[in-house]
């Protein structure tokens, strides 16, 4: 009986194993060189006045705002141009803000866009039933001009190639912008990477 009591006690106390813990070092990749971190954004100057920017838009509860005019994150209601959360992008216009930002999508290579078209720009409008989300409609998330392609079989998001957005900023400047990637090197989603350039500079 003593043996059984011992086993029974062992059984009851053994029912609670240690908590599983992730690698304490976090095994995080080293940061890419050349990028200057500013809040959730990191930017790196490329040749010819082009800038490459990364944003951590993983937090679905908040929006990460960016000011193209300064190349920095923006907290001011008036100066931000674009805001990011997961795979959604808003512009500071229409139902999303009072910044007067406008966007136009062009299917062309980034290098080939050197001038800002005069018309065809859109602001953020109330969501219509033409898509599968309830976000405001703008060229970034419209079915025809969406920045991404969604593979319904693999459930992966990839940047639509050769799609350039011309953005008229809150300061009235024009920029061209192309989204390059949705996942970072470690496969983390909502790590949007885009390159952009002032069209005043591009036209020089």
């Amino acid at each position, binding site marked *: 009986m003593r043996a059984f009591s011992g086993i029974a006690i062992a059984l009851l106390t053994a029912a609670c194993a240690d908590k*599983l813990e992730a690698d304490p070092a976090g095994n995080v990749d080293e940061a890419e060189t050349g990028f200057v971190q500013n809040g959730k954004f990191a930017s790196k100057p490329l040749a010819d006045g082009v800038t490459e920017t990364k944003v951590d838009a993983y937090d679905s509860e908040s929006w990460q705002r960016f000011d193209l005019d300064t190349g920095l994150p923006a907290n001011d209601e008036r100066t931000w141009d674009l805001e990011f959360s997961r795979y959604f992008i808003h512009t500071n216009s229409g139902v999303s803000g009072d910044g007067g930002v406008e966007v136009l999508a062009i299917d062309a290579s980034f290098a080939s866009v050197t001038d800002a078209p005069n018309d065809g720009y859109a602001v953020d409008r109330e969501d219509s039933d033409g898509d599968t989300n309830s976000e405001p409609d703008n060229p970034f998330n419209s079915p025809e001009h969406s920045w991404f392609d969604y593979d319904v079989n693999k459930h*992966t998001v990839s940047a639509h190639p050769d799609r350039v957005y011309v953005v008229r900023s809150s300061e009235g400047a024009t920029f061209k912008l192309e989204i390059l990637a949705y996942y970072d090197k470690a496969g983390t989603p909502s790590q949007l990477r885009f390159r952009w350039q002032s069209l005043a500079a591009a036209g020089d």
Partner: protein
Amino acid sequence: MEMVVTAARIEEPRDRAANTTEVIRRKEIERSGARDVAELLETRGGLQVARSFRGSELQLRGLDPQYTLILVDGERVPGQIDGVTDLSRYGAENIERVEIVRGPGSALYGSDAIGGVVNILTRESKKDFEAQALGSAGQNDVLDLAASVAGRPVEPLGLQLTGDFHQAAAFRRPGEIKTALSERRQWSSGARVSYQLDDDNLLMVSGHYLRTNFDGIDEGAGGALFTRSQLQEQLRASFEHRLSRGRYRLSSRGSYSQFRDQYLLDQRGANVLDRYENNREHLGQLTSIAHADWSDSHRTTLGAEQLFQDLQSARLSRPGHRYRLAAFAQHAWRVFAAASGAHELEIIPGVRFDADAQFGTRLSPKLALRYRVLPALELRASYGRGFRAPSFQEQLLRFENASAGYVIVGNPELRAENSDGFDAGVRLWNDALELSATFFRNDLRNMITYVSRRSDAGGMEFVYDNLTNAWTMGVETAASARLDERVTCTLSYTYTATWDGENRRKLEGKPPHRASAYVQLSEPRWQLDFVARGALSVGRTFYVSDAGPEAVDAGERAVVPEPLPQLDLRVAKRFGRPLEVFAGVDNLLAAGDAYTALRPRTVYVGARGRY
């Protein structure tokens, strides 16, 4: 006379059971070389074991694993992942026998018993003293250790202690980083005490603890890699009182089980997607079953059951609670029986009523017929309605796939799935040969699937609903021969046709043709046993998601991989009763493909000692 328990929930002679009960006995378990129940069942006729990172799951009569009820000592077990019980949790060394009852069993067992019931009966020593130890090691880091001691230190007290350890390396397909099968390390220990109060009354108390570590590598959308660690623990305590007086028997059981599943995903190269879950399930069951042999012609089983289940999981929008009350009755009426043993007709009606806190009430009737045309020729037929209660996951899930940007949500309004099952068969036997053939059909309705919709917050959302239906039908045939004491063999072939009403195509992964063989050669003079177990699955259809000329659904293409042959061999040499040494090879043909993960060929050696 061989006794079985599963077809009536109480002991009865096998040849009078309402449904044909297939029994895998202790000797066969030992000779097979199987390490766990999954390995034991994977080469049985008509059964199929699918392996994934969730473990090993059983498919019966063309149905998915959640439609076959898995019991341990007649009780439900906790820790189902996606409605599926991992059969490799149950080590072979602790098992006395496995009973398989095919066909609808909801009239006795309620939810999940649509395709059939598999009852794993743990060892229950009746000897004054016995001790056993087993050690086995092989390729792919396979290691199995088991020991048990049982006896009667003082009459009328019986005591049994068991402990075992199993491990196997992870398996990854060539060229892949992710693991197809996890590395597995499993410990278990158990104790059972029985007390024979008097000639009529037996009391039993038992406890069992199981701990399993799974380690593997997962790949997410977007190329993220994860080191996955899983730690599962299962604790079970139960008591049972058996009363046997003349023609009457009463069994009262109670059990409590707890299942804890810790799940850790550690993203490589970042920690944004790291995830830790601590899921805990409590399962309590109280069962009373009374059985009366009124006369040679009338037998009645009456039972009542209570079930309490509680699941706390980070994946659920709130903890799941379930309470279920059920009552069931089954009566066997031998309408006539000639003294010769021929022309014996037995009618077995049964019904069960379930009242569940979540899906409401459910009535599951059944009718079985057994007609012995000749002393060695029997016809059987049965019809039963069955159901499967929606799982907590299907009702309460809240899971966001951040990499892909979709959400899966449960639906608390789900109803139980229901089914009609029918089978009819013939069995013919003599001392050396047994032949059988059974036709079966299952029709499932209100099956739970998920549909996509637009979420309130934007983005895509999948929600569960009772939307689809399916059927499976086929013929199971088997021939067993015992040519002399040296040669025993069983050959079986099952044809299965299936239909998935949602996608209007065959059910995925269910082979229309499956053949299996068990051959045992014994040489008594040299005390040698040789066992070969094999199975062949032909015509499995899978649907891959790239559009092509054979597209049968939006973006999906049907693929029929090469036939899948499985072959295990084992040879054992006994040195009297106390010692046996053995060697074997699992998966001799190195089978396995992109659709079916099988451990690679594994050569092993070992020894078993007995006192």
